[in-house]
C-alpha cells in the first residue's frame, strides 16, 4: 500500500476535477449515495457527470460479484463532460465491490473500505482466495481501511436511539451514510442537504432518520479527528462558472420526460405516451406516469406493437402520440412505423438503445440500433432520426422531434442509450416563456379538402382529425393517390409518392440547422464525428488536444436522417475524419455512402461500456 499523501496525485487546484466511485452490494444503497453526493456537488456549484452502473439481476445474492452496484461521478468545473476514465476515490463497501471495481482506481488513488466486511464469508462470496488487504494486491493504491460497520453501529445506536427503537439491523443499514460522511469531509462539502433528505425520507420514523444522520456525522468527524492525510487538493476542486440561471440535476430520462411534456405544453396537444416496460426505457414511462392528472396520459400496453399502434391511434385522433422502448421492442415496432410513415401521421418514437443483439446486455450501453432506425422497415419509409447527445440535450432533441413530427406530418425516431438515460448532469432550466409555440394548423377548409393534399413548402399533408366537421376521411397503409388519398395501384402514382416521401426528408434538412464544428478547430488535422451519448467524451478529448495545440475539431450529429446541410464542407477542411461510435461502424457506412470522396476512419467499440477519454485520445493522436 502506498503511503504518500493521496492528494498529491490530483491535478492542479482550480482546474481540477475528481472522480469518485461508490461500490457495494445492490442492497447497500449505493445509488442513493450517488444521488446524494451528486446533489451536494451541484449545490456547491460544481459541474458533474454521473454514471450509475447497476447489476443485471434484480437482487442477486448478497456479497456476490454479480450483485455489485456502483455509481461514478466526476465533479469539477464546467469542463466536466464525462464521468471520468479512472477513479480518484473508490468506496468499496464489501469484497465483491472491491474485486469488480478496483481496476477502475488509478494508481495512487484512494480506496476506502469497510474492514468489517472483509471477513472469511465475505471474501469467499466474492471469490477471493486470499485477503486483498494482506496479499499485496493493493500496493499501488492508498488504502483507508476503516471498521465502518462497527463505527456506524456505535454512532447510530448512541444517544438513546437504541432505546428509541433503532435496531442493530437499522444501524447496519446506515453504513453507507458513514462512508458518505467521510467523502463529504474529503471534498469539504456541506452535508446538510443529505441530512434534510434523510429527515424527509424517514419522516414517519424520526429515530431512524437520526441514526442515519449520526452515521453521516460520524464519518465526517472521522476525517477531522483521525490522522487521515487531509486531501487538501480535493478541496480545491474547480467550481463551475455556469451561466446565471436556475439549475437542476438532469438525467437523460428526465430530459426526455420533460422534453415531451414541454412539447405538449407548447403545442397544446395532449401527450399520449404509450409504452411497454423494458430496460432501460421503462423509466420514461415511470416519469410520465407521475404526471397523469396534469395533462399527460400514459398507457402501459400489452406489448410494443400495441404501444406503437395505440400511439398512432392517439395521433390519428389529434393527440401527440409518443411511444418509447429499447432495442428488442424497437424491432417489434417496425411494421407500425411503416404504417405511420404511409399514413403521414406525426409520432415520436424513442429508442433507448442497449447492448444487443437479441436480449444482449440489457443494462449496458451501445449505439447499435442506428442501422435499424435508419433502414429497418420494409419498403421505402425514410424517416427522420435524431439522437440525444446527453441528458440536457435529450430535452432539446425530443422537443425538436415534436416540432418536426407535427410540422412535416411524419414519425420521428429519437435515439438515446443506456448511458445517457441514466447519466446526470447539471441543467439550466429553460425560460418557458421564451420557448416558441409548436404551431398546429387546424384551419383547414372543407371545400376541396383532400387528406393527401400537401403544403408546398413542407410537403406536409393537412392534419384533419376526427371530430372536425366536413373533413371526414380515410387513411390506410395501401398506397394512396397523391392528393385524394384514395387507394391507388397506379405505377406512376407509386413512384410519385415514393419520391414525395423521400423529398420530405430534404425539406426537413432545410429546416434543421446546418452542421457545425462544435468544439475545437474549424479546419485542421483531425475531425472527430460522433452522435448521441459520446458527445461528452469526444468534446473533452478534443478540448484537451486543443489545449496541447493540436488542430482537432469535433462535430456532433443531432440528426442522422436527414444528415444536416454543410457536412461535406466541414469534412473537407480536415485531413482526417474519424467517426467514433459504440458500434461496428454504422454511421461510418452511412457517411461513406453519402460522401464517397471523404476518407473516413471508424473508431468503434462494442463492449457495453462507454468510450474513455484515453481511448479517443489515443485514436486521434494516430493521425496527428
Amino acid at each position: 500500500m502506498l503511503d504518500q499523501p493521496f492528494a498529491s496525485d490530483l491535478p492542479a487546484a482550480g482546474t481540477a476535477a475528481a472522480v469518485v466511485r461508490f461500490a457495494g452490494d445492490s442492497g447497500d444503497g449505493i445509488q442513493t449515495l450517488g444521488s446524494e453526493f451528486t446533489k451536494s456537488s451541484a449545490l456547491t456549484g460544481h459541474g458533474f457527470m454521473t454514471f450509475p452502473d447497476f447489476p443485471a439481476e434484480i437482487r442477486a445474492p448478497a456479497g456476490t460479484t454479480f450483485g455489485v452496484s456502483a455509481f461514478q461521478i466526476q465533479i469539477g468545473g464546467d469542463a466536466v463532460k464525462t464521468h471520468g476514465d479512472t477513479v480518484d476515490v473508490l468506496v468499496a463497501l464489501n469484497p465483491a465491490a472491491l474485486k469488480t471495481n478496483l481496476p477502475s482506481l488509478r494508481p495512487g488513488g484512494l480506496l476506502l473500505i469497510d474492514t468489517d466486511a472483509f471477513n472469511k464469508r465475505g471474501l469467499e462470496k466474492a471469490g477471493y482466495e486470499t485477503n486483498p488487504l494482506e496479499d499485496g494486491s493493493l500496493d499501488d493504491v492508498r488504502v483507508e481501511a476503516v471498521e465502518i460497520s462497527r463505527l456506524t453501529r456505535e454512532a447510530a445506536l448512541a444517544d438513546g436511539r437504541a432505546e428509541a427503537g433503532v435496531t442493530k439491523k437499522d444501524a447496519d443499514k446506515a453504513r453507507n451514510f458513514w462512508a458518505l460522511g467521510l467523502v463529504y469531509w474529503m471534498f469539504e462539502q456541506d452535508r446538510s442537504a443529505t441530512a434534510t433528505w434523510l429527515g424527509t425520507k424517514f419522516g414517519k420514523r424520526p429515530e431512524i432518520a437520526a441514526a442515519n444522520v449520526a452515521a453521516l456525522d460520524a464519518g465526517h468527524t472521522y476525517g477531522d479527528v483521525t490522522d487521515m492525510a487531509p486531501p487538501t487538493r480535493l478541496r480545491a476542486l474547480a467550481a463551475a462558472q455556469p451561466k446565471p440561471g436556475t439549475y437542476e440535476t438532469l438525467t437523460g430520462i428526465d430530459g426526455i420526460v420533460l422534453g415531451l411534456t414541454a412539447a405538449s405544453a407548447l403545442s397544446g396537444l395532449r401527450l399520449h405516451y404509450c409504452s411497454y416496460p423494458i430496460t432501460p426505457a421503462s423509466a420514461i414511462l415511470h416519469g410520465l406516469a407521475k404526471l397523469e392528472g396534469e395533462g399527460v396520459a400514459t398507457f402501459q400496453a400489452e406489448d410494443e406493437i400495441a404501444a406503437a399502434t395505440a400511439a398512432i391511434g392517439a395521433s390519428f385522433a389529434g393527440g401527440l402520440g409518443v411511444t418509447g422502448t429499447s432495442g428488442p421492442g424497437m424491432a417489434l415496432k417496425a411494421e407500425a412505423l411503416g404504417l405511420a410513415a404511409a399514413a403521414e401521421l406525426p409520432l415520436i418514437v424513442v429508442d433507448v438503445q442497449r447492448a444487443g443483439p437479441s436480449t444482449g446486455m440489457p443494462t449496458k450501453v451501445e449505439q447499435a440500433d442506428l442501422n435499424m432506425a435508419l433502414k429497418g422497415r420494409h419498403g421505402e419509409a425514410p424517416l427522420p432520426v435524431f439522437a440525444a447527445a446527453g441528458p440536457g440535450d435529450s430535452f432539446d432533441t425530443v422537443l425538436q422531434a415534436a416540432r418536426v413530427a407535427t410540422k412535416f406530418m411524419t414519425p420521428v425516431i429519437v435515439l438515446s442509450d443506456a448511458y445517457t438515460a441514466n447519466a446526470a448532469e447539471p441543467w439550466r432550466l429553460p425560460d418557458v416563456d421564451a420557448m416558441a409555440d409548436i404551431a398546429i394548423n387546424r384551419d383547414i377548409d372543407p371545400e376541396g379538402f383532400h387528406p393527401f393534399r400537401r403544403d408546398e413548402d413542407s410537403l406536409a399533408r393537412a392534419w384533419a382529425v376526427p371530430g372536425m366537421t366536413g373533413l371526414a376521411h380515410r387513411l390506410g397503409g395501401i398506397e394512396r393517390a397523391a392528393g385524394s388519398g384514395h387507394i391507388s395501384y397506379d405505377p406512376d402514382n407509386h413512384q410519385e409518392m415514393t419520391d414525395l416521401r423521400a423529398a420530405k426528408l430534404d425539406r426537413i434538412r432545410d429546416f434543421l440547422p446546418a452542421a457545425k464544428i462544435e468544439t475545437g478547430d474549424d479546419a485542421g488535422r483531425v475531425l472527430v464525428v460522433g452522435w448521441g451519448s459520446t458527445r461528452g467524451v469526444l468534446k473533452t478529448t478534443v478540448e484537451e488536444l486543443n489545449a496541447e495545440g493540436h488542430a482537432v475539431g469535433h462535430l456532433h450529429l443531432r440528426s442522422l436522417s436527414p444528415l444536416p446541410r454543410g457536412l461535406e464542407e466541414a469534412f473537407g477542411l480536415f485531413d482526417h475524419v474519424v467517426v467514433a461510435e459504440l458500434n461496428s461502424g454504422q454511421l461510418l457506412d452511412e457517411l461513406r455512402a453519402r460522401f464517397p470522396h471523404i476518407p473516413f476512419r471508424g473508431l468503434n467499440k462494442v463492449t457495453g461500456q462507454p468510450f474513455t477519454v484515453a481511448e479517443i485520445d489515443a485514436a486521434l493522436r494516430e493521425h496527428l
Partner: protein
Amino acid sequence: MNVMNPDISAPEADTTTPLTARDFTSDQEVRWCPGCGDYAILKAVRATLAEVGRRPEDVVFVSGIGCAARFPYYLASYGFHTIHGRAPAVATGVKMANPDLDVWVVGGDGDFLSIGGNHLMHALRRNVDLNLLMPNNAVYGLTKGQYSPASATGMRSPSSPGGSVEAPVNAAMLALGAGARFVARSADTLQDHLPGVLKAAHANRGTSFVEILQNCVVFNDGAFDAVKDKATGAERTIRLEHGKPLVFGAEGDKGIHVDWATGTARVVPVGQGGAVYDVTVHDQTNLALATILARMEGPDLPVALGVIYHAPGASFTDLREDDPTRTMDRAGLSRLLSAGKTWTVS
C-alpha cells in the same frame, strides 16, 4: 365534437336533421366479391349508424387487414385501415385521445383471432369503450382461402390440403375468457336481427364484441347456410332474449335445457311433449350459462344468436383518472421544471 381542439374552424355540424344510411355512405365503390356477406353487414352497419344518430364526423371506423377490414372505406365517417391484427390497439389509442368519439373496429376472424388475438384480449380485459365487429367467414378471404383459427377441423384449404388438424377457437368463448362484458352473435343476412345486436353493442359503454357469421362466397361458400337459411334457420339457431326461456324452432316447439351437473345443454321438446319447467331461462349476466350457450353448435344443438353475455362494468375510458381534455400548458410546465431540487446561479 373534437374535445382536443375546440377552435376548429370547420363549419359546425348540423345536428338537427335526422341522419340516414346515405349520410354514412362514402363515395368509394364497394369492392367485395359479388355475393359476399360483407355487403349485408355494411348495410346493417350504415342503418345502425343512422339510427344511433352520432354525426359522421364523430364516428371513427378502425380496421386491420382483410376483406372485412375494408369497411372504413365505405363509410362516410373518419376511418383508418391500419395493419393486420392491430386495430383494437389503434382504436384504444383513438379512444384515449378523444373519448367523445364513437369508435368501431372491424376485422375478420384472421385479423381478430389469429394475428390480433392478443390485442383483442387486452381490449376486452380493459373494457375500452369500443364496438368490435368481427365478420367471421371462418377463412382468410383476402389471402385467398387458407383455413383460419375459426375454421372447422378438417377444412381443406390451400394451406391444409389434407384437412386442418387444428381445433377452431370459439370466438365468443375466447372473449368471455378474456373478461368481455358484452358478447353477442348474429349473421350477415339476418337483417331482422343484426341491426338490433349492433344497437345493443353500441349502447354498452365498454368493449362490445359482436361475432357476425359471414358468408365468403369464394372460399368458404355456404359455411353458415344452415344457420342463416330461412328454411333451416329456425331449427338450427336460437335467438336469445334476456329473461326469456331458451325456446326455438319454427313452431317454438323446442327448448334448451342445461344440465348443470355436466355443464352441457340439450334440446327438449316444449309444449305438448316436454315439461316447460325443463327449459332454461336466459340470463345474460350468468357467465357460466354464457359459456354453455356460446359453445352450442349443430347438428345436435342450435347456434346461439343475440346477446350471449352482458354484464356492464366501468369502462377503461371512464376509469382513467385524468380529464381527457386537459393538456399540459406553459404554467404547468414552469411549475414542473422548478418542482425538483434546484439551485440558482446568479
